[in-house]
């Protein structure tokens, strides 16, 4: 009898031990810089530290100010209400499944001959008429917009200006912080943001992160995740005859490398081909 009890206790200890071993294994993963767990943890701490620095209203004001400059630089929105609404529907569809689904996004097609798309902080996203011209179905459009949403969700533009003088000691923009010297510093910060987004480009790592997020977001929404690869391959074909300055060619990492990384990620989605591409509605809304 005692033997049976002894066995029971031993087995219990063994089971608890196994659970503990699992715990140690999990903790161990956190010390590996390449592990998924470590990336999640570092992502979480980044979000915490950046949200401490800036509230959403401030981020949005920076985004709106940058948007005013973008319209002057690249051109006004294309004057087709149905097209602009369609773009917002596709954009909101993917935004709802992004890593930052709960802020208000806005999307606009700009009348520009440069193949470009970019995101202003806070969720105002632009795509040029030229880049839209390269796209052939809704899953491809969704992917490009999801790439830009990835930048907003990762707060990439904001991170690129975190050392700006204006932001030192400022967590919230108010009417008072827009006056005098602070106002000048704000203008200079918007200028720096333009240089980063339209001339130098964001950090390469941020672009790869936005690509990866775009594929995942498109897939989660139910769009064929191959959309972004298709667009990049099309851009590759017409690279020779395209305007480079201020385009996806000059401000983003080489297309070859982006495609290769996405092809690798695509292996995670074996059912890719069964998902929506929505060619006919796209043609009806965009190509008319």
């Amino acid at each position, binding site marked *: 009898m005692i033997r049976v*009890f002894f066995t029971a206790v031993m087995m219990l200890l063994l089971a608890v031990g196994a659970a503990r071993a699992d715990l140690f294994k999990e903790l161990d993963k956190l010390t590996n810089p390449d592990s998924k767990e470590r990336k999640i943890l570092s992502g979480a701490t980044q979000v*915490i530290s950046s949200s401490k620095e800036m509230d959403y*209203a401030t981020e949005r004001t920076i985004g709106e100010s940058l948007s005013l400059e973008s319209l002057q630089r690249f051109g006004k929105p294309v004057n087709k209400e149905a097209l602009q609404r369609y773009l917002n529907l596709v954009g909101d569809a993917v935004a*709802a499944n992004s890593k930052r689904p*709960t802020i208000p996004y806005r999307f606009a097609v700009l009348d520009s001959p440069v193949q470009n798309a970019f995101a202003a902080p806070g969720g105002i996203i632009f795509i040029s008429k030229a880049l839209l011209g390269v796209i052939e179905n809704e899953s491809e459009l969704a992917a490009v917009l999801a790439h830009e949403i990835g930048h907003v969700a990762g707060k990439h533009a904001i991170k690129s200006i975190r050392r700006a003088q204006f932001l030192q000691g400022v967590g919230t923009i108010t009417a008072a912080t827009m006056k005098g010297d602070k106002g000048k510093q704000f203008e200079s910060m918007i200028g720096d943001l333009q240089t980063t987004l339209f001339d130098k480009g964001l950090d390469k790592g941020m672009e790869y992160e936005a690509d990866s997020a775009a594929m995942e977001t498109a897939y989660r929404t139910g769009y064929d995740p191959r959309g972004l690869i298709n667009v990049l391959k099309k851009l590759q074909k017409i690279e020779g005859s395209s305007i480079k300055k201020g385009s996806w060619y000059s401000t983003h990492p080489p297309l070859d490398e982006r495609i290769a990384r996405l092809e690798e990620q695509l292996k995670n989605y074996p059912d890719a081909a069964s998902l*929506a591409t*929505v060619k006919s*509605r796209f043609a009806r809304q965009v190509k008319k």
Partner: protein
Amino acid sequence: MRKKVVTALALLLALASTVAMAEEKRWVSSDGTTLKTEASISSADVASLPVGTELSVIEAGGRWIKVRTAKGKEGWVYAGRVADTAPSAEVTKEGGLFGGTVQGSQIETAKADSARSIRGLSPETSQYAKRRGTPESFKKELDKILARKVSAKELKAFLREGKIGEYAQ
């Protein structure tokens, strides 16, 4: 007696294994997520699930997952709308097109006009435009962009028409 001990042993073991293998969890990661009675969008709604809601997995594998909420509601949710990690605290504090997160919105009424509902440029952006001497026509164009709001209902109809995600057949 021996039988009793064996039963006790089995019970103890079952208990231990439950502790060892904690219930599998998912978190609602998409705005506008609905718990359905069956694994189909055309089935009845059980509840709206705000971003950040914790779910226990009952059955997984396909594009729909059977789950239970903390309040004990059971149903099916589309797999693309949940994640195996909780969204960041910041995300669950923000509003959303469908107007619901677990913690509610941090964007107060005063900011609502410039953020969630957006009726034009924020006063601070207007001040920036004034300093820069931005032509009025560009301000108006940006106002139009910000005012172009898609409703939750429109978005659902759009997904249904395109047979996208949970609307795919």
